[in-house]
């Protein structure tokens, strides 16, 4: 099992490295890569973001976002919009503390790697199980259910893949969206 975890982490590191190299210039110019390079045609996406709700784990909020046709840019745009918070005051922010989206990468087999960057490299916040489910699957569902070709999502925290975000869920594996958490539409 430890070898399996080590393998997953190594893969994640490689992915981050690849993403970092690919997006390095943009990173230096714009720390939050929610937009694409100037030469890439821009597109407008209609997405549904998943925010922690009062009565259910997650509730959807429709949003129009501007990005490019590149899946990495779309992943970053979706996560950036999610981290910017909900419009509906009845919904909650994914994180209570400031968190930004770092480099994103989509592997050929449909696994999206999303690096979350906390202010000053702060460690993961303490989370109860409900909050951990809300935090992890707001990100996973928002990315996997809005960006074509994304089947599963790996979440990184300041460049490394934690075994768990809050001590309940196993985040050492790529996560598929949990549709049962979303309200019936």
């Amino acid at each position, binding site marked *: 099992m430890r*070898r399996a975890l080590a393998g997953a982490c190594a893969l994640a590191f490689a992915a981050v490295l690849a993403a970092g190299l690919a997006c390095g210039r943009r990173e230096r110019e714009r720390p939050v890569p929610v937009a694409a390079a100037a030469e890439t045609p821009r597109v407008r996406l209609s997405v549904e973001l998943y925010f922690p709700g009062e009565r259910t784990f997650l509730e959807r909020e429709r949003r129009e976002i501007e990005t490019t046709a590149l899946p990495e840019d779309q992943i970053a745009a979706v996560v950036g919009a999610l981290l910017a918070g909900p419009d509906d005051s009845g919904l909650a922010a994914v994180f209570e503390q400031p968190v930004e989206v770092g480099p994103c990468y989509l592997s050929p087999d449909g696994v999206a790697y999303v690096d979350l960057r906390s202010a000053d490299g702060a460690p993961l916040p303490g989370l109860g199980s409900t*909050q951990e489910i809300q935090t992890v699957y707001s990100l996973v569902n928002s990315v996997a259910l809005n960006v074509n070709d994304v089947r599963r999502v790996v979440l990184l925290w300041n460049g490394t893949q934690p075994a768990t975000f809050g001590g309940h*869920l196993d985040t050492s594996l790529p996560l598929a969206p949990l549709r049962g958490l979303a309200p019936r539409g």
Partner: protein
Amino acid sequence: MVSSRGVNKAAALCLSLLGVALAFRLAAVEKAPPPLPVLHSGSAQVTVDGRDGEILYAITEKGPLFGLTPLTVLLGGEVASDPAGRAFTLTVGETELVFGPESESVVISGAPPEEAVLALSQRPQAASFGLLVPLDLLEISYGRVSGLAFRWDPDERRLAVSRPPANEVAVAAEVVHLSGATTVVLTFRDQPARYRVVAGEGWMDVQVPGGSFRLTGGEAAASDPLARGIEAEPGRLRLRLAPEVRASHYTLDEPFRIVFDLAATGEGATSLGAQRGAGGLTTIVIDPGHGGTETGAIGKGGAVEKELALALALALERRLEAELPGVRVVLTRTEDLLLPLAERAAIANQNKADLFISIHLNSSAGGRPTGAETYFLSLQASDRLAAAAAERENPPGGGTDGADSEESALALILWELAQAEHLAESQRFAGLVQAELNQALGLKDRGVKQAPFSVLMGAAMPAVLVELGFLSNPEEEARLKEEPYREQLVTAVARAVARYQATREPAPLAEARP
């Protein structure tokens, strides 16, 4: 004088026995053909009376097969098998059905001769988590006995179970004695439209006008220190009390239950609790969540989940050791240290625990929810793990990393299956914990839930994760910081353990060999 009805019954019994012998003897002699290839498998939704659950299913060329054990939890009934796993007996009400993975027939006890042995559309299939059975076996068993109708929607992966209106009132009784008090729980398959509870001298009645009670369980009431038995009669269910015993009652929903609390009013009541032993439980592992650098939830008032979870777990250990003599209680941690999630379940497995209870306090990102909730493992996790394992074994882009990858994949699948085998019991125990927490504390009922919690996956025994309140709610956080309140929580969980051990089937005895 023997009546024709008696002759028919005898003939049916003979035919049944002959059928069983024939079906399984033939299979043994002729060597059963291999099971049909599974074209697709996964988890499906099952809807019973508008309530959703999850079951495992598989599709063969002859149609769907469904995991039997979870269905018996939802629909009632009991499954037993012979030690070799070749003959299974499903008991639904008074009816016994015998079938197995080597035969395309089912034998029904007490049925007319022409209906005692019926053909199935395909043979059941054995899986590591239990037996998969075809749809027509469910129709034969639950359809005939309980009048249930089944409809499988392959597109939605949903099995809908509906009940016809009936005057029969199906009730399952459960009796638990602990610390000189007895609790009798009557669980109704359907809540009666009209009922009333009437107290008399030495008895308590549940009366349902025009109802015909079908009672299962409750035999322990006959030998309980505070009760004399439970009797089903047309229109009423009577709980007989021992002399100098008073009873109170309350109701619970989903499913509808009437709970009687019995207490002795005379002398000697306090010593009655010691009369019952620890039943089938020998070892219980309690897991205080988090620890070390992993704090878990932190309340605005400064309460830290890892600290409260440890305090609650230590108190529960003391309570269980006092209340259930002979039961060994093991904690995964007794101090402030961080244990990997996998190691917690491994401790339970190494100690051959019969029950695993992970203690947590909750927090939410939205609103100010309060209350307790009890989780058992979601099957969605198994889909995810299996898929992830398969991907690692055959990564896109070519090549595998050989034995390491295979070992990883195998380990993941085995871990997941370790708990899959115990899901039904985990669900049952979770229901008991939740009911006790609801009743004892008047907490908001957040219900029994399922989630892919990692700490439950590797546990090879019934396992639950209990969230005992929300630290993100300031009022509940303040209560959780008070020891008397935590003692109430511990009492509720301990009562659930006692009820579970009282109703738990004993471990099968080793087969005698000549």
